[in-house]
């Protein structure tokens, strides 16, 4: 083997993206080995994986931003549920047009995220506790909005007579596929979320401030970085993406379920961490998260293709998260 190319390979191997890609590649190789009688080689399997992983991926985008500030957002799953319920409620019983309902839902998610951010930045409460409280609160709020039931197109009037309303076109649109059925709109929204997050982190002043606050908050403050505003923005962004995910969720389920998305925040965190963004803050990227989302997506797909029972699936997922993180850290 050529010496200099060996060195270059070793340098490349040390970059976080390379490690995350190798973890993903390893997952694909495992898929090829346990291909469930060739099922893994069918294009439709990969297409479905992308669609199934998209809602989680959208949450993971906001989670990445918050984790880079050395925080965490446990409330995303509840904000997602609230957004789903609110979206369904505005469209179905109230009959709002989608172009009005969508901004309102996004604003609601952003507002809830901002509240978390303000509590973290102004009141100096730990992010874990703030967002744990917000997780419980937003779930409760979702139940208030829905009256504790699922909101479907089976609508109850004020007099108590039930009727069925037509599902608005936006539900079908979000759940539909383009490019000959190969790319679902939810996946497009996910990829768009990744792009938006990338722009924020890599091209905007806010992104630099986010990395600075996560890397050394005191240093950031004494360099003139508006630390509070930065933290509020990060949590607001996470709330925004949770609302986007909530709209997608409602469209896919064609209803607003206040119980939906339970424990999704854990998957989102796992996807960020498996990509190689550390919880310590100050470093990471949404590209890593994208790779992490695909890695977990393939893991779930391989397990379900091979008809692994739920119990095995959970245990393997836990074990593989640890292995992937260790693998990425590599030898010091």
């Amino acid at each position, binding site marked *: 083997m050529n010496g200099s190319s060996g060195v270059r390979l070793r340098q490349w191997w040390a970059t976080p993206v390379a490690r995350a890609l190798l973890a993903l590649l390893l997952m694909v190789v495992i898929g090829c080995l346990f291909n469930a009688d060739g099922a893994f080689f069918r294009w439709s399997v990969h297409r479905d994986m992308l669609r199934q992983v998209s809602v989680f991926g959208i949450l993971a985008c906001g989670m990445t931003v918050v984790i880079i500030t050395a925080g965490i957002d446990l409330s995303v799953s509840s904000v997602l549920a609230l957004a789903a319920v609110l979206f369904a409620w505005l469209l179905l019983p109230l009959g709002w047009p989608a172009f009005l309902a969508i901004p309102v839902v996004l604003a609601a998610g952003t507002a809830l995220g901002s509240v978390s951010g303000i509590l973290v930045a102004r009141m100096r409460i730990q992010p874990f506790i703030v967002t744990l409280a917000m997780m419980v609160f937003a779930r409760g709020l979702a139940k208030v909005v829905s009256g504790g039931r699922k909101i479907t197109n089976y609508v109850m009037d004020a007099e108590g007579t039930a009727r069925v309303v037509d599902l608005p076109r936006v539900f079908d649109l979000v759940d539909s596929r383009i490019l000959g059925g190969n790319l679902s709109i939810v996946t497009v929204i996910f990829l768009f979320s990744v792009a938006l997050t990338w722009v924020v982190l890599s*091209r905007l002043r806010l992104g630099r401030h986010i990395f600075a606050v*996560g890397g*050394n908050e*005191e240093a950031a403050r004494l*360099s*003139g*970085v508006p630390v509070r505003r930065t933290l509020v923005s990060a949590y607001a962004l996470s709330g925004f993406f949770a609302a986007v995910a909530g709209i997608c969720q409602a469209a896919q389920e064609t209803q607003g379920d206040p119980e939906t998305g339970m424990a999704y925040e854990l998957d989102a965190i796992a996807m960020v961490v498996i990509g190689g963004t550390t919880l310590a803050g100050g*470093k990471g990227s949404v590209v890593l998260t994208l790779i992490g989302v695909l890695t977990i997506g393939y893991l779930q797909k391989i397990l379900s293709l091979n008809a692994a029972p739920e119990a095995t699936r959970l245990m393997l997922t836990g074990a593989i998260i640890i292995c992937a993180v260790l693998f990425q850290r590599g030898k010091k």
Partner: protein
Amino acid sequence: MSSPEGPPIRSVEEGGIPDHSGPGFPVRPAPLAEMLGIRKSFGSTEVLHGVDFEVLPGEVHVLAGENGAGKSTLIKILSGAYDDFEGTLYVKGEPHRFAHPSEAVTAGIATIHQELSLVPSMSISDNLFLGREHTVALGRVDFVRQEEEAREILGKTELDLSPRQPVEDLPITAQQTLEIARALARDASVVVFDEPTSALGEQEVEALFRRIRELRARGRGIVYITHKMEEIYRLADRITVLRDGVVVRTASASELPPREMVRLMVGRDLDGDKGLGVEASPEVVLKVEDLRVAHPRLRSRFVVEGVSFTLRGGEILGLAGLEGSGKSEVLHALFGALEGRTSGRASLAGTPLPLRDPTRSVANGMVLLTNDRKAMGLAPDMSVAHSVSLSSLRRFSNRWGWLRRREERTAVERLTRGFRLGAPSLDAPVRALSGGNQQKTYLARCLLPTPSVLLLDEPTRGIDVGAKADIYDLMGEWVRSGIAILLITSEMDELLTLSHRILVMSRGRVTAELSRDTASKDRILEAAMGHGRGAA
């Protein structure tokens, strides 16, 4: 190769061979620690190219060299932080290769790091026995015995403290004394001091030196790393100069005059202390009246009490005082970093300052360089380029916050070129840089917003002579361009050379204002200890 007398000093430059019989040691005692032909690489770059180094009993051996010369790496090998090196390390004649710092401690090598290694929330006694607790049955810690022994250890120091007191309550000097006491309690034969005075005031330095001389008298071997010339010649028996991973000379202190040593360290001649030779303009840039800062916990007490002064364009105003005099707080308060504790009036070029918003301060053209680069200055994972531009991002972005990255990059490149910044690349993380280059990165951040007032707290702390000279040159340029500097430095010579005027503080108040002509070490120290004749 060697002449009959033998060269008195080893020198790679002169092609000398290792000769251990230094002139001060006609009968050579066995070295306590000896390192032979040490080579060490990080990745594909070798940073030590066959270094020989030894410590004899009863000597203070200063290890000198610029940042990046390999001093830290050598010390880390000695203290057990690295075990993947070539060459041999002998401790008391036995070859060793420490896989872990605790093994070095067991072998009798104690290291007092620049950053203290005590656990702040734990008690003095717990810290003294950290990692080697006295235990009774079932691994329970014998706290009673530990406390007794801790009291004994404390008794041998000048510290009048209870072993139960948490370490975080102690001033930094007491913590350092404690670390030394811990090293002695572990029966260390070699004590390594890695820039121990960087956080100390003048009096505390004296106390430390007394302790080091005691150690020497008791036959311990001391390795001492410092960038302060004065310290080297007050302490050193022998000096080893490292440059670029090679020993350029080992000689007794009396045979290596300062000028020669600096030349060896830097590899070029430096023109000496000439002062900056810039006159301040008559125009007042910063006016401070009755500045007060409340104590962080006891709100009725003040750490800064009624400080007033003016700062003119192109002026360097030195701020002197012992630790705890409130000088750093003055800088932080002016910058607006002590929100809620600050009162008083200050105006920058006629505009009143809010004294509570660092972001506004930077926008107004006032920046702060803190005395703790690690805790308050840089984010270790951020790239050099991004670290430098952090305070100036508003200038490089449009109103939507979109960054003009090419413009930013050009400005950072232009500025860092003037700093002679030694970084593998501007995209490398700050953590990959040596201390001096990190400091230059930090300074560059303060300069990029083109401030009108620079608040500098120990701008040359922990950096080598070469980098210091660079920074003095830069300060001259800044002052010439009309920037006003409020300067804190614990190096008296630096303060006296650079400042136009010096304010001396003691217990939160200004006790003297001295002009360049009237200032002297004695007068500053006198006023700092509270015997001043009142502010002028």
